[in-house]
């Protein structure tokens, strides 16, 4: 059986180890991110939320997930 390769990525400034080729959609669902209430950036590029399933995560990817919080 082929062993699944692990890769290191960064999410909101913290390192995380995940399976290689995991789709961004599945990764965010695993994290229970409420997709309707956030925006997602991958390597400084904004990602269209409809296309999350088409993106497979690669080594050293940098993900930022933001939402609205209280502010003046």
């Amino acid at each position, binding site marked *: 059986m082929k062993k699944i390769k692990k890769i290191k990525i960064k*999410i*909101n*400034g*913290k390192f995380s180890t995940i399976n290689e080729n995991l789709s961004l959609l599945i990764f965010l669902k695993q*994290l*229970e*991110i*409420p997709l*309707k*209430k*956030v*925006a*997602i*950036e991958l390597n*400084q590029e*904004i990602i269209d*939320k409809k296309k999350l399933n088409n993106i497979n995560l690669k080594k050293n990817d940098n993900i*930022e*997930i*933001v*939402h*609205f*919080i*209280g*502010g*003046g």
Partner: protein
Amino acid sequence: MTQDKFIVAKKKFNSRLIVGTGKYKSMSECAKAIKLSGADIITVAVRRVNISDKKKPLLMDYIDPKKITYLPNTAGCFTSEEALRTLRLAREIGGWKLVKLEVLGDKKNLFPDMIETLKSTEVLTKEGFNVMVYCNDDPLMAQRLENVGACAIMPLAAPIGSGLGILNPTNIKIIRSQTKLPVIVDAGLGQASDAAIAMELGCDGVLANTAIAKAKKPFLMSLAFKNAVIAGRQSYLAGRIEKTIYGSASSPKSGII
């Protein structure tokens, strides 16, 4: 007064008070204060989602963006790049185009960096944003912001969170008189009367956060701001009397016994 609507980027609002959602003790306190203020627009900040604490309450769970207009801001941004990135992300969250731009230049007094602000306003306008711009109380800069497409001018009353009130009412009046855009006094208000003064100067609206959130009784201050903005607007529309240096009796002189 029913016809006296507050219009920003062709959108009509009933309340001329915009409130910030920062510095409250809890989300529920914030939500209640907002309700009492009667505001139709609230400012919100864009920040990282807390990945490790999934149970942390979200602002959207407490304040429904379908019932009130969220105005994403760029609080905490010190460069044009940071501000542009923040607002592009804000738009992506849910299609927000009406935004508040604020590019700070100094960490101590939190005054805006107007060069970066001007640059950002131009870029954002070209990208289709309706940009309400936090700026200093400089009429020339306000004019430049208008020239590059700002949809509202938001001069500071005083440094953010300072509570000093309107330090330069003359400049605010000049800014109001020279533009057709809405002018909203933003930042530095300390109490409800400051909001009334802003409205009496002819401003179209007021933005308050710290003055309400950090008052000893935020709910009462929220109501006070609501009333002050209404009273100030009514006073402005009613037209004040001329000032004279002599007295003028209120009762008729004829028929004195």
